[in-house]
């Protein structure tokens, strides 16, 4: 039987400022924005290859706010969050986790403190 990977943790990374909150009509007229978004996606993919020890996935579905990322391991998700300043991008301060028992996606707030990251 195929061993399916479960992506338990999910984060959303905001698009570069110029690409946020753009309607489909605008995107159709602005290929430069599409290029920026595609480059952004490939940059994320390359960085995830460096950061993650286990499997990850960049969600293909379009969202106006950003790109959804899925992590198999919580340790990888944490590493990605704390290395945010290094790559100079902005994570939506929320983490979604799939509960192994209920299979529900539970969302928690990420709170940045001077000493690290806490979940509220």
């Amino acid at each position: 039987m195929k061993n399916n990977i479960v992506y338990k943790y999910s984060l959303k990374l905001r698009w570069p400022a110029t690409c946020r909150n753009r309607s489909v009509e605008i995107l159709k007229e602005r290929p430069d924005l599409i290029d920026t978004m595609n480059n952004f996606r490939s940059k994320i993919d390359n960085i995830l290859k460096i950061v993650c020890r286990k499997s990850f996935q960049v969600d293909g579905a379009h969202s106006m706010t950003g790109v959804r990322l899925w992590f198999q391991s919580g340790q990888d998700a944490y590493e990605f969050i704390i290395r945010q300043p290094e790559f100079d991008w902005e994570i939506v301060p929320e983490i979604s986790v799939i509960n192994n028992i209920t299979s529900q996606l539970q969302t928690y707030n990420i709170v940045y403190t001077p000493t690290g990251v806490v979940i509220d």
Partner: protein
Amino acid sequence: MKSAYITVVGSMPVKFDLSQARKLGPIIGSSNNNKSVIFDFATVNTELNLQDMLNTEVFQQTNILTPENLYKKYLFFDQLSALPNFPGLKSFDIEQEKCSPQTLSLLLSVYLQKKVIFLLGYDISNPTELTRLKSIILANPDIKFMYICNPPRTYQLDDMPNGYCDTYIKFQELIDREK
């Protein structure tokens, strides 16, 4: 195949090869009381015990469940999950954060909707624990609760229509039959 059985290992030491019980279905451990077998699930509600479990090899493959307040502090550990909201907790006067881990394991076993729940090393010497066990048994008439102990058998559950008591020998016989 989905198993109809589930085994809850309480807070007392168990002189039984728990890997045998796995042949019947999943096993739930209560906190870090027993480290002799890889549990499918384990419940814990104190930070110190949770830290110990996260750092113990035998619990690396176990799905550890903990109340949400504690879960948030250790969310980035893959084997950890938040306990679900068990129905009727208020009527049982049970708080996930304050009750014993064996009560949490029992609630989890009920939540997983198996037909027969085996209770091994389950401490009923404490009147609160016994009352809670009886309340949960009464609230779940479709589930059979089988308390396993060494002879002489206890009569504490005899007044329960779906509560039974048997010995480890009979439990082993059942495992051998089900193989």
